[in-house]
């Protein structure tokens, strides 16, 4: 859990207090803290003068606006057809073994979350994953191990 503090106020001053600012505000909170807490959503509702249920209802529609605890680095592995044909299962297995978590879980130190996602637009370089915003493509178990190692040292 994180404290939102002044963040929501700063964001709504920057993006505006109208309903159409909701997505940019929620996205900015997730950029910083990786997921949305109840407290953050209630705070956003207050700033935009809409009900907290509206904020939650909107956030829960979007897979990237997580309302469950997520690690500092969210690993999204594409599971759509081309990646699945080109070895996505081996990639998942390597990451699972390395981080000692299963798909859908977060490491106890809140550093990494592992999830599956649908086509991320790199099918010609499958298998592909995103770590937060960054794509990594043409992966092999060895390659992905190196990448995660780098992130562990960050």
């Amino acid at each position, binding site marked *: 859990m994180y404290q939102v503090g002044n963040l929501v106020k700063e964001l709504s001053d920057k993006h505006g207090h109208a309903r159409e600012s909701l*997505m940019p505000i929620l996205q900015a909170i997730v950029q910083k803290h990786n997921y949305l807490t109840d407290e953050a959503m209630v705070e956003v509702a207050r700033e935009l003068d809409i009900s907290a249920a509206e904020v939650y*209802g*909107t956030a829960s529609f*979007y897979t990237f*606006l997580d309302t469950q605890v997520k690690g500092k680095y969210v690993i999204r592995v594409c599971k759509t057809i081309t990646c699945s044909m080109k070895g996505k299962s081996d990639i998942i297995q390597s990451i699972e073994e390395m981080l000692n978590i299963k798909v859908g879980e977060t490491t106890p130190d809140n550093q990494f979350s592992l999830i599956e996602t*649908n086509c991320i*637009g790199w*099918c*010609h370089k499958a298998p592909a994953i*995103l770590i937060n915003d960054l794509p990594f493509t043409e992966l092999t178990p060895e390659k992905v191990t190196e990448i995660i190692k780098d992130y562990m040292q960050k």
Partner: protein
Amino acid sequence: MENKGLNKVDLIFEKIDNHEVLAKGFKMSKDEIIQEILNSGLKGRGGAGFPTGMKWKFTSEAKSPEKYIVCNADEGEPGTFKDREILDRVSNKVHGGMAIAGKAIGAKKGIVYLRGEYRYLLPKLMIELDSFHKMIKKIGYDFEIEYRLGSGAYICGEESALFESIEGKRGEPRNKPPYPTVSGVYGKPTSINNVETLVTAMMIVQHGAKNFIQYGTKDSRGSKVFSVSGDTPTPGIFELELGMTVQQFVNEFGDGDTKAVQVGGASGFCVPRKKFAETIIGFEGVPTGGSMKLFNSSRSMYNVLHNYLEFFTEESCGQCTPCRVGCQQLLKGVEKVKKGEAKSTYLNELMKLADTMKIAAKCGLGQSVGNAFKSIVGNFKEEIIY
């Protein structure tokens, strides 16, 4: 039917003098721009293939002091990645196309809706947008573009869901009519166009409709960018003249053992080997937003279908019953047949369900699940059953 063979073209990614093309475009009247696009026969490159000139004409005729041009960069269709490449390499042409569209329809504001998966592009795009704004200011033209991001929902590529998302709501498609040309984003007349459509429109202003119609066929004018993936030695992004057959495509991109090509992504059609020669890629045959996936004989078409059905079940917004329940039932249904828990004739019932979804679902997602379902089950029944 016309058959143009396989012809590589380089127009979309061609480097141009943006300033020069825009200065030319801004000198044209709005009717002249619309007429030029109508003459070109350009059809939308996002998948649905609505004539772009008509869309601009309707939006230009709508009476409102405030209008919008929206660029659809949500690119969520499995197997499409060309819009990312276009934005990465020639964003100036995307922005330019939006300004020209803006002039044609009478919009001073443009919004690019970029899928969240492409957020890494944003810092670069912001720099390029900044110089674009400076340039059109110098030409003395009043137009501004804003970027909005998606957050991982395929359905937000559907135009009215995309508007809802921009407005800060759940991405649930609206009822139509009213159409976007009358009531789009913020309830204002809106022309929503795919990334590639806008670049192609820019190219038509540059080279003239007369030159554009030299490419392609009567029903499918011009060239288009294809996203090629799957079992191919040369996956990637290729601009090809429209009008080739699937056979010609496979001769170029196949691995010698191609058994099927999925044209148009999960919501498109599966073409089996025996129909390669007779099927034209384009609006007269199988339409496509550009997604071309090749499968060789080592692949199980059951796995392909199962993967697509999982995709739809997850991405259905759940708003209407035919789609929400239909997707789940199709998925469960093929699993049952595969496990032998249902007779193979059960597939006929599922085919009927897919037909019902085409009629009863509220938006294009539910309506097109049957495309892949029926073409895969229809052509590869044995692989689904055994």
